[in-house]
């Protein structure tokens, strides 16, 4: 059900005592080009969502990030860190392992803010110059949300915080 007062993307659920329980946002998959089995380019919806991200009190910048329930942590490209004026390589260094066992060098930072439809999540992320796609993972995103529901048919992700 959509709350007309707050617009089509935002609704607030109320407990019996009329206090707000959680707030939720409906965001949508993004269509990206992909080759089909015949090599033809088709557009496929992928769970990339728009979010604004900032560091400490810095200016938020809007990026598309992949909501990836299989990722252990938030992992952003090093260039996103540069854009947010983070001294990326000053973070604590850790190797991250991707599919196929490929290791990438990444740097951990606290003080990252994620804004989705006006809701702020104060979190942390790893940054790596060997990573091209921003990823929202279990620690730092899913664990900060109440629920994250994928509705592939409607190409919709409902996030309650």
């Amino acid at each position: 059900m959509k709350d007309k007062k707050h617009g089509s993307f935002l609704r607030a659920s109320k407990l019996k005592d009329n206090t707000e329980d959680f707030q939720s946002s409906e965001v949508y998959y993004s269509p990206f080009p992909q080759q089909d089995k015949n090599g033809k380019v088709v557009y496929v919806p992928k769970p990339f969502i728009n979010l604004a991200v900032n560091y400490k009190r810095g200016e938020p910048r809007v990026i598309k990030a992949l909501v990836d329930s299989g990722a252990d942590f938030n992992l952003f490209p090093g260039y996103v860190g540069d854009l947010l004026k983070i001294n990326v390589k000053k973070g604590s260094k850790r190797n991250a392992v991707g599919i196929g066992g490929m290791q990438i060098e990444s740097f951990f930072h606290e003080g990252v803010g994620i804004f989705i439809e006006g809701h702020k999540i104060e979190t942390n992320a790893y940054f790596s110059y060997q990573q091209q796609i921003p990823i929202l993972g279990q620690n730092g995103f899913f664990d900060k949300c109440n629920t994250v529901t994928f509705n592939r048919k409607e190409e919709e992700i409902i996030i309650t915080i």
Partner: protein
Amino acid sequence: MKQKPIRGLEKYVNKWVAIDKSQTKILAAGENLIEVSKKVKGKEVIFMAVPPLEPYFP
């Protein structure tokens, strides 16, 4: 509301692009995010990395 595809995005695989807030037009493209951000300085945009055309496992 389902999002509509941004036509021509396939030309920018493995690159960064800046799109307008209505998510219909590509305003700038480049090899990395910093290069693209310099091209659209002062404009309200959405930055995105375009994944490869092959099936992608991040």
